[in-house]
């Protein structure tokens, strides 16, 4: 049963995709593609109680697996995809180019949670990364095209790093198996362990926006229409989280590696907030909040790695699942607020609860997420940093709420146009759902309701909110930092690299002159002779 569901998780989007290649079915396939994640949803829910499961198809070299962290993220991601997809195609009929990009991204976004061998994981990971270009970059707007090109460059670079990482993983497995479970079991003893780990952290770090690979994310979310930003920030980024969970050897203490990743994670968490506070557009602020939150996840995974704690995987899956719901709901909030014009008091409370959930506001899902991370941030320096991160998050989200209410007319108009009417109408329900749903999946929800825990969760949020409001009242202006911060430097470096192009052209033109080519022929003879004689 569960095996069939796992297969169906991949087969359903594949079937819809195949239907798109028949001209007369295409439109209908795209309109009904909201059904494609249904098997994934079922598999996720079923998997929560039945995981871990693994199904192998040796003839195809394909394995599918589902473990509890994967099941939780799969269920939430499938739910999000279904809801947003259904709303989007009910409201309007996006073109085939957008629709197929959407379907491909969804295919990959569900597949990463069940792929059990290196090659299929690589395939679905590429799907969740590359086709997303089509969701926002085909535009007359040069800023969107720029965002697209940068997005693609990072995605391809990440793919390249991971390909090498996977090759090292496969080479370290003595029996030639490509199953993730097998290669990870062999990794601690592998001679390429350190290189593989570095590539894994860098490769998946690009997806989750770890510094210094964070710059593409704000550009991407600012350029993407709100439904796309919702699924990309919610479900898409979690491909990087599941990647780290799957490909970090969490059961074996890795001192050094763990600490390094934790430090990088915390650095990213604070860096994201700091740069985010200097931004003014709600979408960009949310992007920096994502960077910061992913930094927290990376830090927790790093600490888990250092201690050899497998529990970090489940904890961070829960943290990520909560972020998945909340962040996508927050993007929809921008649309809802924009179309309402002014926020009613009730809506403001709801939006604030949603936003501050990311800082661990008590009674929200965020409180549970924060509780889940406690095992990693138990005491000492990590605990302190985690608390500071909560405060910082609360500041950033307050900053977001302020700018949400002060959106320019043009930005509001864009946001209103981008968001499907259904989602605007049902926004309060969606927001409530995002706040409450995690309660049904937490291990011990009751614990979060104890007074002590409530106080623990409350005071950092209060401090953060107060600090943000105080800062605003002080009138101190934040420095102007362009969205994407470090990306500007990369672009400059890239332009300098592109300036090398003519150098290559000149060299090529020289080498293609007859005398040079003929002399090369003789040189090759002599070089081969010399090499063979050594």
């Amino acid at each position, binding site marked *: 049963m569960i095996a069939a569901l796992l297969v169906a998780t991949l087969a359903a989007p594949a079937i819809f995709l195949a239907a798109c290649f028949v001209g007369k079915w295409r439109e209908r396939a795209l309109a009904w593609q909201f059904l494609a994640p249904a098997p994934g949803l079922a598999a996720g829910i079923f998997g929560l109680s039945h995981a871990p499961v693994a199904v192998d198809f040796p003839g195809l070299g394909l394995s599918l697996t589902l473990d509890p962290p994967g099941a939780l993220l799969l269920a939430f991601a499938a739910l999000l995809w279904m809801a947003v997809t259904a709303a989007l195609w009910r409201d309007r009929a996006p073109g085939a180019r957008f629709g197929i990009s959407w379907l491909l991204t969804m295919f990959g976004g569900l597949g990463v949670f069940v792929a059990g061998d290196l090659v299929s994981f690589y395939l679905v990971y590429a799907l969740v990364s590359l086709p997303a270009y089509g969701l926002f970059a085909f535009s007359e707007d040069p800023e969107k095209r720029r965002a697209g090109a940068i997005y693609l460059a990072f995605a391809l670079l990440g793919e390249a790093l991971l390909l090498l990482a996977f090759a090292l993983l496969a080479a370290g497995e003595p029996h030639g198996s490509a199953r993730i479970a097998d290669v990870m079991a062999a990794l601690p003893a592998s001679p390429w362990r350190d290189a593989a780990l570095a590539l894994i952290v860098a490769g998946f770090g690009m997806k989750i926006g770890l510094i210094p690979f964070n710059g593409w994310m704000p550009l991407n979310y600012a350029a993407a229409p709100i439904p796309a930003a919702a699924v990309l920030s919610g479900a898409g980024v979690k491909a990087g989280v599941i990647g780290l969970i799957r490909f970090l050897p969490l059961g074996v203490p890795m001192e050094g590696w763990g600490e390094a990743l934790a430090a990088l994670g915390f650095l990213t968490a604070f860096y994201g907030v700091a740069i985010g506070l200097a931004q003014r557009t709600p979408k960009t602020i949310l992007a920096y909040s994502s960077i910061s939150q992913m930094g927290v996840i990376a830090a927790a995974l790093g600490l888990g790695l250092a201690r050899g704690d497998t529990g970090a995987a489940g904890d961070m899956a829960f943290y990520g699942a909560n972020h998945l719901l909340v962040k996508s709901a927050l993007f929809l909030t921008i649309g809802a607020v924009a179309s309402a014009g002014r926020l009613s008091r009730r809506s403001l409370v709801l939006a604030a609860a949603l936003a501050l959930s990311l800082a661990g506001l008590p009674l929200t899902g965020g409180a549970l997420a924060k509780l889940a991370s406690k095992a990693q941030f138990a005491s000492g320096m990590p605990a302190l940093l985690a608390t500071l991160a909560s405060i910082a998050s609360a500041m950033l989200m307050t900053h977001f709420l302020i700018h949400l209410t002060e959106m320019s007319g043009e930005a509001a108009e864009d946001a209103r146009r981008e968001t499907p009417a259904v989602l605007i109408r049902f926004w309060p329900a969606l927001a409530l759902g995002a706040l409450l749903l995690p309660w049904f999946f937490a291990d011990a929800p009751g614990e979060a309701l104890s007074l002590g825990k409530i106080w623990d969760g409350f005071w950092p949020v209060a401090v953060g909110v107060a600090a943000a409001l105080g800062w605003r009242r002080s009138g101190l202006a934040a420095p102007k930092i362009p969205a994407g911060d470090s990306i500007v430097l990369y672009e400059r470096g890239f332009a300098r690299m592109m300036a090398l192009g003519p150098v290559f052209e000149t060299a090529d*033109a020289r080498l*293609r*002159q*007859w*005398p040079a080519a*003929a*002399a090369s022929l*003789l040189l090759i003879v002599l070089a081969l002779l010399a090499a063979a004689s050594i």
Partner: protein
Amino acid sequence: MNPSLLAGLVGAALVGLGLYGLIAHPHPLRKLLAFNLVGSGVFLVFGVVARRGAAAGYAFDPVPQAMVITGIVVAFAASALAVALILRLAVAGGDVSLDPQASGRRDDGEAE
């Protein structure tokens, strides 16, 4: 010095001369002559191998000699094809240079 070694050295010298012509001569017909020099040098090496292989009542090993005959035919066919191209190019363009930059002719003109 025995004749076959001498012929071998002549072959090597011809190969060297031809290779120099290949690099240094801009005119394609001169390159074609250089090719024929290298070719005949290679055939001489075959001839030396054949002569050294004299055995069983034969003054030479017939197999490499037969290969030379095949090789000469192929080399002639190549020369004839190259000459046809050179002449046609001279008629069409008036310029037979092989390096596009030297003649100002670019090789990235429109396709079809």
